[in-house]
Each structure stands twice: as structure tokens, then as C-alpha cells.
């Protein structure tokens, strides 16, 4: 294998690892790439948003069918945060509390946390490919 090919393979692996880590846990992709400060700020902000949402009685139910497309999109948005979604479900927070005054706030917080993590994932991929500098 030539040195150019080996470098390209190593870069592709690094990009894939950064993308995977960024999805699994918010900010971890940036920490992996050496952007520790940026990664920790993103991790703290997105996790705070998600945890506050869960504490506000958000539902985390999984919708995969097409009979309710909006519920599917909502569920996909929440899953964008990766491991914290799975952990919250395993801890028994999946049902939420529809009668809670903060239920809708909670849903918004958790869905936005997942969507923001998708942006963070894309930024980590760009950083790994050298498209973004800092």
C-alpha cells in the first residue's frame, strides 16, 4: 500500500470515528479530534438541554411506523442525541407525563437537543476532513 493510500485510509477512519463518537455522545467527536474546549461546551449545553427536557416530563417514546409521520420525525429528532436518549429510556423516562404543565416544553427541549447534536455531528465531520479550522 502506498503512503498516500495509507494516509487516505487513516483520514477516512478518523472521520468515521469522529462522526460516530459525535452521534453517540454530544461533543465527544470534537474531544476526539483534539478540540477539547469546543467539545466540552457543546457537550454541556446539549446535555443540559436534554436533561432539562426529560425533567420537564418529555416523552421519549419510539415511533418507527409511517402511520404518524410527525411522531416519526419527532422521535428521530430526539434520537439524534444518541446514548443519552437510550439511557433516559432505560431509566424509565420514556412515557413522559402528558398532564404536566411543562410537558410541551420538555418535548421541545429534548427534540431540539437531538437536532442540535446532528449539527454538532456534521461540524465534527467537517473538522475531521479539515473543512473547518477551529
Amino acid at each position, binding site marked *: 500500500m502506498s503512503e498516500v493510500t495509507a494516509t487516505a485510509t487513516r483520514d477516512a477512519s478518523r472521520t468515521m470515528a469522529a462522526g460516530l463518537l459525535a452521534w453517540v455522545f454530544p461533543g465527544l467527536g470534537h474531544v476526539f479530534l483534539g478540540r477539547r474546549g469546543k467539545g466540552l461546551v457543546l457537550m454541556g*449545553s*446539549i446535555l443540559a*438541554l436534554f436533561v432539562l427536557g426529560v425533567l420537564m416530563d418529555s416523552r421519549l417514546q419510539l415511533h418507527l411506523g409511517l402511520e404518524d409521520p410527525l411522531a416519526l420525525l419527532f422521535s428521530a429528532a430526539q434520537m439524534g442525541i444518541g446514548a443519552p436518549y437510550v439511557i433516559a429510556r432505560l431509566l424509565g423516562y420514556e412515557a413522559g407525563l402528558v398532564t404536566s404543565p*411543562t410537558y410541551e416544553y420538555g418535548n421541545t427541549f429534548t427534540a*431540539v437537543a437531538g437536532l442540535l447534536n446532528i449539527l*454538532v455531528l456534521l*461540524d465534527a465531520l467537517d473538522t475531521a476532513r479539515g473543512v473547518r479550522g477551529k
Partner: protein
Amino acid sequence: MRSHLLNLLLFAGLVSTVFATLLRDTTRERLRFGLMAFAAFVLSTLVIGWLTNPFPR
């Protein structure tokens, strides 16, 4: 946390922090962008809330 205003401030602060961190590169630019985004979130919510006040349903 049943305070609408506190929820708004928390949401605006955290989302502004993420946007500023992602979209700007220096600390000074991030601070400026974050504060602008935060102010935009809060002010636009208050203005829309005020405008929709006569239409509760």
C-alpha cells in the same frame, strides 16, 4: 420549573451557546454572536407573545 420566562431564558441561553460555538471561531466572535442570538430569541418571543395576547385560542 413552571415559570415560562425561566424556561425561555434557559432554552435561549443553551441554544445560543451551541450556535455561537458552532458558527464562530474566536472567543470574542462567539460571545458577540451568542449574546445577539440570545437577545433575538428572547425579544422575538416576547414580541410574538405580546402580539398574540388578544387571541388566546
